[in-house]
């Protein structure tokens, strides 16, 4: 008996993969339905779902880039300390001292690319009219995901802790301070500079170590968790709203 067959008939293999090699249609369906990774895809795909000229594969590429950001980001977290004493030096060390210093660049390029592909995905959905009923709510989730992508970029921008990131976030958080109602300098403001949204975001009245820690936690934990939840909802709704949209 060839080795491959012996592996396939072993109890270990059978305990992991419950079905024999999919040679007939019922087993093909079962193999897809009983596998966590495979079941994310529908059992049967419409042919137009593979038409690259229609889909651009931009949603898939955006999701792939999110996974790249998660993997490289977790690796960077092993060296980066979000303190005034260490943040800038750890960032430089990640480039110059640590093995495979290109990982930080991959994380950064991936972030830029993800903003671009998310917007191109949005453009494709708009141009093909795929936002129309019954997919209106999924468009809304998609807009929230775009906002989260931009917020992830914004919070990640502070972490190198150089002049560029420091003043960029100063400008960005001052814009929050000028927001209506919740910003102390905004129209119809009813808060002070120690109780407005900017104060909550920075943990202080100016960008300092409190802001660095808050942006770090938002960037590494809070926003990715929220994005992962919304993505699950986004993908699930594609299936529930009638599958991938096709040419009319």
């Amino acid at each position, binding site marked *: 008996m060839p080795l491959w067959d012996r592996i396939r008939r072993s109890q270990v293999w059978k305990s992991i993969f419950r079905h024999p090699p999919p040679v007939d249609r019922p087993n093909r369906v079962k193999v897809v339905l009983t596998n966590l990774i495979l079941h994310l895809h529908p059992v049967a795909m419409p042919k137009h779902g593979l038409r690259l000229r229609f889909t651009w594969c931009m949603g898939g590429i955006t999701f792939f880039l999110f996974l790249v950001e998660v993997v490289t980001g977790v*690796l960077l977290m*092993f*060296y980066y300390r979000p303190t005034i004493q260490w943040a800038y030096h750890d960032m430089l*060390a990640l480039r110059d*001292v*640590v*093995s*495979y210093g290109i*990982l930080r660049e991959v994380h950064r390029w991936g972030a830029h690319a993800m903003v671009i592909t998310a917007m191109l995905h949005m453009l494709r959905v708009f141009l093909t009219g795929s936002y129309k009923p019954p997919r209106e709510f999924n468009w809304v989730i998609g807009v929230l995901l775009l906002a989260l992508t931009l917020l992830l970029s914004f919070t990640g921008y502070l972490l190198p802790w150089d002049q560029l990131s420091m003043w960029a976030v100063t400008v960005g958080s001052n814009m929050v301070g000028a927001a209506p109602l919740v910003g102390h300098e905004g129209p119809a403001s009813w808060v002070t500079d120690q109780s407005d949204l900017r104060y909550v975001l920075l943990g202080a009245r100016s960008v300092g170590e409190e802001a660095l820690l808050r942006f770090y936690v938002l960037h590494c934990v809070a926003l990715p968790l929220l994005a992962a939840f919304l993505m699950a909802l986004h993908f699930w709704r594609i299936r529930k709203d009638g599958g991938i949209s096709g040419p009319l």
Partner: protein
Amino acid sequence: MFRIPDYVVSQRTRRAVLSRIARWMAGLGFAMLGLVAGLWSAASARFMVPNVATEPTRRFKAGTPGRYPPGHVEQRYKEEHGVWIVHEKYRGRWQLFALSTACTHLGCITLWQESDRRFKCPCHGSGFYPNGVNFEGPAPRPLPRYAIRLADDGHIEVDRSRTFHQERGQWDDPASYIPG
């Protein structure tokens, strides 16, 4: 009668050849995928090994022997290096040596009590004489010594990468003390 020669009617149909090529291409694709995954995993594992340490060096200079009069216990290297530098009698001879500050019971950091002239462990009450030998509490062994020597510039150099244990008779090793 006309007969089609064998080499024209091949057993290998066009479909069989094409599907074999397709299978090979798929196999090649998965092999490349596996290669990339393997390289990525190896690179990630290497990434996890730090190239630079920010912890204190194992070897440090501790001034000239004149700084340590007989009976002196130096506490300034406790915080950074975890070392007592002691000028004390051991087996009737004055010696200058470097003791570990970690209690030999469970590794708590001992305190120097000048009034009682003993190292005292705050965790379970072990006590050590100034020469490092345990005399009370649960500590099973004396505090280990680190390598110590007079460097060429006349300064004391302590090397924490080598330890000397009294219970193994290693305190007789001249690398474990400077004769006082």
